[in-house]
């Protein structure tokens, strides 16, 4: 038993950073990411007697981690599915598919310097946090972490068509939120 503890503790020190970094590419929320890494080590502890000493502990830990991430994401979207009832596209577009007057994109005075403007980025972050979590994950994985659409569909267990619907809605909402909150403050 003491050998286990020493070895596990070593593994925690060696692999935590890498496991966490990997988790963060899929799960934005810090608390959830930390919990998942922690649970990975706990699961490893439980399965330790079955761990084949000849194989690489890193590979083994990553296998456990990936399963935990997949489980987490699946559960999250099962919960989220219930909550999204209003389609932002119906809010922005009329029955003919034209922009509703109050949602028409306004002129932005875009300066490339805006990309680094801390206040602007803060507004973006806030708007992002208002997206339904299902969509914000899809957007994050696609635009922030640049995963392939196929990979994302696999991770989130959705079809490609669903994926594009989500991205479309998220971007429309994000743009509108950004415009409403940014322009009113300038």
């Amino acid at each position, binding site marked *: *038993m003491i050998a*286990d*503890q020493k070895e*596990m*503790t070593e593994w*925690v*020190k060696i692999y*935590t*950073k890498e496991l*966490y*970094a990997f988790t*963060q590419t899929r799960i*934005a929320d*810090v608390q959830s990411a*930390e919990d998942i*890494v*922690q649970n990975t*080590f*706990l699961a490893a*502890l439980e399965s330790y007697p079955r761990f084949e000493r000849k194989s690489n502990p890193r590979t083994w830990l990553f296998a456990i981690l990936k399963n935990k991430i997949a489980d987490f994401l699946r559960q999250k979207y099962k919960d989220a599915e219930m909550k999204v009832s209003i389609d932002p*596209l119906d809010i*922005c*577009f009329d029955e*003919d*598919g*034209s*922009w509703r007057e109050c949602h*028409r*994109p*306004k*002129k*932005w005075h*875009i300066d490339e310097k*805006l*990309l*680094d403007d801390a206040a*602007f*980025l803060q507004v*973006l*972050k806030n708007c*992002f946090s208002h997206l339904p979590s299902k969509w914000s994950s899809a*957007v*994050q994985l*696609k*635009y*922030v*972490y*640049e995963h392939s*659409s196929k990979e994302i569909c696999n991770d989130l267990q959705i079809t490609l068509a669903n994926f*594009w619907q989500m*991205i*479309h809605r998220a*971007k*429309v909402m*994000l*743009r509108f939120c*950004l*415009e409403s909150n940014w322009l009113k403050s300038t």
Partner: protein
Amino acid sequence: MRKVMNTIMLSCRQATEMIEKKRHCRLVGMQGVQLKMHLAMCKYCRRYNKQTHLIDRLLKRHRQFNSSTFDKSVLEERIIADLECKL
């Protein structure tokens, strides 16, 4: 006449969807042409196109905000303590 127009012309709603899709996969068949036509005629969708591209660039930068706050040692200590309870 309207029905014919609708099959040839994209609505703004459809155009915004094509704009998002175009970023990552090729538009098929007439879609590319239809989008170009729509953008030539619709200033709101032209604005949308510009703005959504800016957001994409912003989101890429946003990545830097995510990773800087991780405190490795705190998480490690927590895990080690947790494991000790279980052993």
